[in-house]
């Protein structure tokens, strides 16, 4: 880490960190838009009605909840049943 700081341009490093984070955000927005479009969108109308908009907002919230739930549960099973690879091969 220290070694890298001495050779790499700190301004550039900072820039890459910020842009990477922005990109992760954007990527997830692309993904969730696609998933929620399937769940929420009927026939595209002249405007996005409020019912559909609420569906999209809920869809985003539940998608993130699901992702966190799965992560937590995997962590739990890993802790109680030993290593991941063991529980996978059972």
């Amino acid at each position: 880490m220290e070694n890298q700081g001495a050779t790499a341009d700190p301004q550039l490093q900072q820039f890459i960190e910020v842009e990477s984070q922005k990109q992760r955000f954007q990527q997830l927005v692309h993904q969730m838009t696609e998933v929620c479009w399937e769940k929420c969108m009927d026939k595209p109308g002249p405007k996005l009605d409020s019912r559909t908009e609420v569906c999209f907002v809920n869809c985003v919230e539940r998608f993130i909840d699901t992702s966190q739930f799965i992560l937590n549960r995997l962590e739990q099973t890993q802790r109680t049943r030993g290593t991941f690879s063991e529980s996978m091969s059972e």
Partner: protein
Amino acid sequence: MDGFGSDFSSGAGSGKMDTGTIMEQVKVQIAVANAQELLQRMTDKCFKKCIGKPGGSLDNAEQKCVAMCMDRYMDAWNTVSRAYNSRLQRERARI
């Protein structure tokens, strides 16, 4: 561990690029990549919604549907972006 950063700053042989130029180029590339991503997913979704059985041409009704679908997809994208952003804000405030 001196791959990434030093590769950029040394630029051996090809002449040294200044940081500002690199950052500008990276930004442009990111913007292009995002536009392509959106275009691809939008085409996919709106094709699916609007073109039932592909006929001899993209007829008037289909064109209207695709145009509307594009606008709604952008609305959806922005709604999702706002919802995700406010979720992140809330989660940051909790910590």
